């Protein structure tokens, strides 16, 4: 394996997984919010924590995209 081939493999494994990482960030955010709403606070805060953590999840997904677009080493 040459150096270029290895670099290509790393790039592919990082950037090939961007989409799934973004959508799992959103699901994790919604999951945390749903758990806090319905299990911890007993529906008293519903639906606000779900929405807030949905926003956090979306921002986390996009932050990951932004960081990947800013990488200098790859």
């Amino acid at each position, binding site marked *: 394996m040459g150096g270029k081939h290895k670099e290509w493999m790393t790039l592919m494994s990082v950037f090939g997984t961007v989409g*799934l990482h973004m959508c*799992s960030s959103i699901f994790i955010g919604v999951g945390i919010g749903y758990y806090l709403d319905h299990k911890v606070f007993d529906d008293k805060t519903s639906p606000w924590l779900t929405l807030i953590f949905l926003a956090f999840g979306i921002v986390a997904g996009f932050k990951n995209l932004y960081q990947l677009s800013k990488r200098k080493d790859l």
Partner: protein
Amino acid sequence: MAHPILFISVILQALGLPVPHTLVGETLLAKLVSPHLTYTWLVMAILIIMPKLTLGKLELVPNGRQNFWEVCVGGLETYMTDQMGPQRAAMMFPMIATFAFYILVANLMGLMPGFMSPTSNLNITLGMTLIVWVTHHILGLKYHGIKYINHFTGPMPALIPLMLPIEIISNLARVLSLSIRLFGNIMAKETLLAILFMLYGAFFGPLPILCLGVLVSVVQTMVFVLLSILYCQGAMEHAH
């Protein structure tokens, strides 16, 4: 849908063991003989017995069989050394190499009729992912101590209340994405093969999917291993 014939399950059923027809059985014995677990043991047996058979004793000038293992192990180790330096690579190598060989053999085994991939069950991939996830946090705590929290606080102190939940969600998403990717790809391959085999197995219908299955197996192994290396390396680096 027709139930695929798995030869270990057939043998165990002939022995009178309660092999479950769903994914996971109810009693402990039924859980122990469920297909993904028995095929995991088969992969373990292959990985233990095959090097024993092919590697009698190591020689300085390798012959054919030793060459094969040297290429497999050496290629992975060279890659890890390039990524994280020789000392850390030597520390991480046993775990990562175990994952690499296990996932590769498990993925490729599902291409044979009568076998299934243990990795087409979410429990197996989630278990492996949790091991990687816990390990990279332990490594981060070991290398940075309490300052490991700097990885999660973002660039400036004023943004900590905003960045902390975002970073934690982003980190938890690694568990989900890493496990679901491997599980989804391999389960798709298995299901597609089963359906095509049922529809026109007599006319070599699954053949193109078998070729693609080899590609998917190797690529998913590579992705899992490289991402675990990158996560562990990112936890050991300084926060930027």
